[in-house]
């Protein structure tokens, strides 16, 4: 029995060694680990992010002539600061559980010897994966998790590129106050949110910020995610008929809400959908035609032709057969470019040098895929220049309408729907 178990172990080890041998062919490459939900309930988002990061690595390694005109790192031939080392992505599946994420972080660090990690979508999993990176002293770049506490842990190796819930809430508040000044009614606001981490945390921050800014949330509806039916909630809304409705939902529920609102024929003057499900390409494809004028927030809008964002959007469409970059995939791609830029400036795969380079990051808006004011980290590792755009669906596609400086199209109110 022992013999067989030893033999199995030996075979296993040999298999793993084989894997290493194959990797060894790609010498000189800088390995970056990416941990995403590639199975489980969030697999859809995880796969979009994976494709965005793969595309980013391809741009750095093989170049893109058009993009190279505006973004120096896109010339191809790997990272110049590292003598042309190519970037090799190692993807791992967190399976939607904190424990699996942790196991994979450990494997990527100790076995794949990655220079840095990127991930992991769900805030709870980012919490555990980044804790492993912190213990081992490996830089961890987080593109998209918004839980406030992530940057409050005193971590030295954690860098978050995305804006957080408070930034979104401030953007909505400023946006609504502007509409009020322009004569729109915003006296009653309904806040509908799903009851898991994302919905709860975003909704409570919105409620706090609005209360401070004198906007009255007159109705708060929490519902459990993955509902089979949302008709009662929509009927409640129809009865109270608020001027503004804000939804915080994942894709599954977003689709149901859009369908049910059409079925029950209810629409508020201003309908805001906080990113999440409403920005999923699957949602836009399925429901875009019946949600004309839906307002959302996104860090991404294609922008002017020839800009970094527009070129990347076109490339991504090619890669995914038609799905453009959206809020989530754009944030992943942006964080990947931030990490690549830091690696390039570090000129080394030594963790401490990468960490120092990340701390010194200062990227200007015209170099960005995402619509941030720039990228610059504070002591806690939060990007202080992260901000968000407000977008609106126009003929089945999101266009940027606010703030005015970055708007490509005028805002159209009231909400038209179908």
């Amino acid at each position, binding site marked *: 029995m022992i013999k067989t178990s030893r033999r199995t172990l030996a075979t296993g080890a040999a298999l793993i060694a084989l894997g290493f041998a194959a990797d060894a062919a790609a010498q000189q490459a800088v390995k970056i680990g990416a941990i995403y939900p*590639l*199975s*489980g*309930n969030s*697999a*859809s988002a*995880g*796969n979009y992010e994976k494709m965005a990061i793969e595309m980013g690595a391809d741009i750095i390694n093989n170049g893109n002539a058009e993009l190279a005109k505006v973004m120096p790192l896109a010339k191809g031939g790997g990272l110049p600061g590292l003598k042309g080392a190519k970037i090799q992505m190692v993807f791992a599946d967190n399976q939607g559980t904190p424990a699996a994420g942790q196991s994979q972080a450990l494997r990527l660090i100790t076995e794949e010897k990655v220079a840095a990690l990127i991930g992991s979508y769900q805030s709870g999993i980012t919490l555990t994966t980044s804790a492993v990176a912190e213990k081992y002293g490996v830089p961890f770049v987080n593109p998209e998790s918004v839980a406030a506490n992530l940057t409050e842990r005193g971590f030295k190796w954690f860098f978050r590129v995305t804006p957080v819930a408070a930034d979104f809430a401030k953007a909505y508040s400023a946006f609504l106050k502007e509409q009020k000044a322009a004569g729109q009614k915003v006296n009653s606001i309904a806040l509908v949110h799903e*009851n898991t981490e994302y919905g709860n945390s975003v909704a409570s921050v919105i409620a706090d910020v609005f209360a401070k800014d004198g906007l009255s949330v007159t109705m708060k*509806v*929490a*519902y*459990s995610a*993955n*509902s*089979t*039916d*949302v*008709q*009662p*909630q929509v*009927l*409640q809304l*129809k*009865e109270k008929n608020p001027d503004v409705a804000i939804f915080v939902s994942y*894709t*599954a529920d977003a*689709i*149901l809400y859009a*369908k049910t609102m059409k*079925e*029950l*024929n209810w629409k508020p003057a201003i309908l805001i959908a906080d990113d999440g499900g409403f920005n*999923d*390409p*699957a*949602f836009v494809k*399925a*429901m875009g*035609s*019946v949600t004309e004028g839906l307002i959302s927030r996104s860090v991404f809008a294609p922008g002017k032709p020839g800009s970094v964002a527009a070129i990347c959007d076109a490339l991504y469409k090619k890669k995914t057969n038609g799905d453009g970059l959206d809020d989530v995939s754009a944030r992943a791609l942006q964080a990947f470019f931030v990490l690549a830029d830091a690696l390039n400036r570090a000129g080394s795969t030594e963790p401490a040098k990468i960490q120092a380079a990340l701390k010194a990051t200062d990227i200007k808006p015209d170099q960005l895929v995402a619509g941030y004011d720039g990228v610059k980290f504070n002591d806690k590792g939060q990007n202080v220049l992260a901000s968000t755009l407000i977008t609106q669906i126009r003929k089945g596609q999101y266009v940027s309408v606010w703030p005015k400086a970055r708007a490509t199209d005028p805002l159209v109110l009231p909400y038209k729907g179908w």
Partner: protein
Amino acid sequence: MSILQPVLQVLTSAAFWQVVVGGLMLGAVYALFSSGLTLIWGMMNVVNFAHGDFVMLGMYTAVVVWTSLGGGPWASVPIAAIAIATVGVISYFLLVRHIMRGPMLAQILGTFGLALFLRYGALWAFGANFKTLPDNLVGHSFVLAGLRFEGARVLAGMMGLVITVLLHLILTRTSVGSRMLAVSEDATAAQLMGIRPQRMQALAWALAGASTGIAGALIATFFYTSPTVGETLAIVAFVTVALGGFGSVLGALVAGLLIGLVESLSAFLIGPVWKDVIVYVLFVLVLWFRPQGLMGKA
């Protein structure tokens, strides 16, 4: 009077009755996708943990027929029925036949493994993205007596009633049905009477698969389709079947309508977060007082 006033106010509001109607239609859909589960459960004393994933496969069949082959609901429903019936019969011969006499644990183990296999097979084949069917002829709604009815849900609800009643009639009024029941009562005795138990059981899986396939194809007309959608539906189906009393097709119908109504009303009157809590509490209470379920044989 002052106490009654708010109650009256609720009862006379159009929204309330809309919720009642919506809840009943939802309940009919629950009954629809639970009928296959209760049939297998009652006939063979096997809990199919892969049931939700059978529904999911039915939904994908509809999506494929609809989007790739260009068929509408009239093509997708029968094709899904045939496809899932086939899946059911294959599962019966390759797996269930061998585990149904074993301990109950082996059944859970086997059907749970099957569930994982099907769920992630779908992820592999169709990708993780949410799919929805294009707006279509059943996608419209109409107004009746001041209440709005959604075409797709009405159709699904109606089919739920029809199929449940049909299954009930097959089991109670036809000779095939009585042979199937004989096998479920006592397979050995049935064999002595010249009934081939395996054939009857395979037939039960085919029937259950067909009704599940139809359920999936109809649900896909108003619900999103994703590889993990079966998980969402399976727990509802379990509760519906156990509440109704296992093996009782009509029990599943009553339980489905009750759960749909309770869910919708509690979401409307108390708050959407509490609807699951109330359904589970109700379920546990019913089992406390009637351990055999609402319409199970005592």
